């Protein structure tokens, strides 16, 4: 199975280990991985800030870059960027610079084969247990875009359930945004501060020593706040968790484990 990594600008610029862990997990599970060279960004930073005209070239570049390598699937380490890429066919309806509809046509193809990392493992590869082990008490931060725009509410919880030694604690107010919101965190930093403060309080209340999420943006925000407060908190992307202390003999398919319960609201 040929998999292209949709790296995201944030992972490229800031968090290389997220990509490394992701590649190692995917290869272990039998994927042939490649990284399309000219890809940069999904376009959210400008698009969501209202710079829509400036965003069409960003999306075009992304479509060109990701289409350049033949692959079965595209896998991304961020729920938010995945969600936007999947929304491209809706967004490009307003694109004035695509007279032939060529970008739209390719956007539809890309959209259909793009998955967020954890949902790819569970829903496409059919893997329930990556064989990982992590001795820690952790809680999970659900990103808004992954939950609501991508509609993925379950796979991270299910995968984490099968990590050996990992004790998961429920996070109060899990439905509330951490205050990242891209340029919102900078432009409206006064409101963002109130939001991330509240998120940090709820995380501390769980007694967890580790915070896990599927979105590097949220982790940079919440982790940056913990760092500002000088408080110790282990911040981990799910790829790092699933690549921790792996014993390949423990890897299990969905059919080999009990069916997990659907995620309750919120």
């Amino acid at each position, binding site marked *: 199975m040929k998999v292209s990594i949709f790296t995201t600008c944030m992972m*490229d610029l800031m*968090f290389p280990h997220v990509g*490394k862990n992701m590649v190692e997990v995917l290869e272990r599970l039998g994927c042939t991985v490649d990284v399309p060279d*000219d890809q940069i960004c999904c376009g959210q930073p400008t698009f969501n800030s209202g710079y829509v005209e400036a965003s069409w070239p960003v999306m075009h570049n992304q479509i060109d870059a990701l289409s350049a390598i033949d692959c079965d699937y595209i896998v991304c380490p961020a729920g938010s960027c995945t969600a936007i890429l999947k929304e491209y066919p809706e967004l490009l309806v307003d694109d004035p610079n695509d007279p032939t509809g060529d970008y739209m046509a390719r956007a539809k193809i890309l959209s259909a084969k793009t998955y967020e990392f954890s949902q790819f493992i569970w829903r496409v590869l059919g893997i329930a247990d990556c064989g990982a082990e992590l001795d820690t008490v952790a809680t999970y931060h659900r990103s808004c875009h992954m939950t609501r725009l991508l509609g993925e509410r379950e796979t991270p919880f299910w995968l984490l359930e099968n990590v050996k030694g990992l004790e998961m604690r429920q996070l109060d107010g899990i439905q509330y*945004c951490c205050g990242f919101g891209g340029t919102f965190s*900078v432009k409206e*930093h006064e409101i963002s501060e109130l939001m991330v403060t509240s998120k940090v309080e709820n995380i501390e209340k769980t007694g967890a020593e580790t915070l896990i999420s599927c979105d590097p943006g949220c982790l940079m925000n919440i982790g940056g706040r913990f760092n500002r407060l000088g408080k110790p908190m282990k911040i981990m992307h799910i790829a*790092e968790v699933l690549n921790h202390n792996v014993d390949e003999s423990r890897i299990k398919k969905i059919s080999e484990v009990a069916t997990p319960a659907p995620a309750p609201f919120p």
Partner: protein
Amino acid sequence: MGLSTSTLPFKERIAAAAKDKFAHASIAKAQDTQYTKRENARAELGNWQDWRKLGQSIRQHVIQYLPDYLEEFSDNVEKRGGNVFFAQTTDEANDFILNVIKQQQGHHVVKSKSMVTAELDLDKKLQALPDVSILETDLAEFILQEDDWDEPSHIVFPAIHKDRNQVHTIFKKLGYEGDNDPEHMARFARKYMRERFLEADVGITGCNFAIADSGIINLDTNEGNADLADSIPKAQIVVMGMERLVPSMKEAEIMDNMLARSAVGQKLTTYVTFEGQQTPGETDGPENFYVVVLDNNRSKALGTEFQEILQCIRCGACLNVCPVYRQIGGHGYGSLYPGPVGAVLSPILGGYEQFGELPFASSLCAACTETCPVLIPLHNLLIKHREVETDRLNMMHGFTDFQMKVVGKGTSSPFMFKMALRFKHFGLSPWTHQKPVTATNFFEYNNSMITKGPGMVGGWTDVRDLPVPPKHRDDFRVWFKHHKKQGGDAK
């Protein structure tokens, strides 16, 4: 004070809201309580997503054929013997209402909750009339009135920012001698307001839905104050936004069910009333029935990408799930219509000059879109507003605008992005203060954290540390090339 509820600049309102610990705690508690009630009520109904589509289809159809529905409704009001006044502006509406009160020789006006009359700033106009008393009869609005006309902060719970002790203080001024138990205070308000109800000669009500095919209106209250306001006085003035129609009682009933479950998690609001001009032979209810239909810039949304906001049924669910509303409350928005719906609606009604900041006061978490019972894509409409302000009206200036344009260039040019990857580690260093990493693991390759940076980075570092970008040799792309050469993907 009408649509605008504050004269303070936006950032000062946020700072004031951040300091108001009580309001903050009470909103958080309200949101959490409502969460469970609302979600349970919807789950119990079943097929919620299909109900939403049904609600959306009704409201979209009404907006698409709004002139026809308004014509049908007004014809039917007239057939029943009532009157309809179409007001383009708030001034026209106020003049008409004051004139009716004069004609009716009204001295005691009772009002039941109406956001549109607040939009008109009608209370202030009525106060200026000699020999006319005015009473807001919704318990929350009564509290606000008696607190020297404090501004509402929620469209369903207007006094959500006040606690029982504050209410107690307000009621003591009215002669209340009991304790601060909400039940006791509510009984006092009942008695106080009942006396005023009985002498009322004009009732002013809002309108949840106007029924086009029969010329009657639909009012939903839990207290029963709208029912007293439409029973006792001889004259009733209904004030409604022009978009609040439904084809018939059949659709009103559907919307009432969705409204009650979305607003407060009830199956139906306690008093769901369909009423209009008194029928011959009846002895109470309005002998003189007036409906004021207000535009006040709502029509600016018609035929635009913002048309869907007119589908709103004012359930307040988007406020109740909003993490920004949770932090800054209604007063932070500075608009009569706060929260996500307010951030979309206020710039349309009041213009970008005054409310242009509201669409940016959102992290675009989409909780609003997810909860809206009539499927208004609220967070997308916020982006649309940003686009109008940025691309079409060129309202963005200065260094931030420049930086965003650089981001646009940098994220569309592979060459520039690769340059950025190469130089990012050292690029920021001269302008920053740094400290070590305490939140571990995730910042493994960042070595240290920036505590104070320039430009947009400054907005970030005012709140939290920013990881220093890793050295180019540690980049994922560099690692991956090496990894492939090592035969890492041999499988």
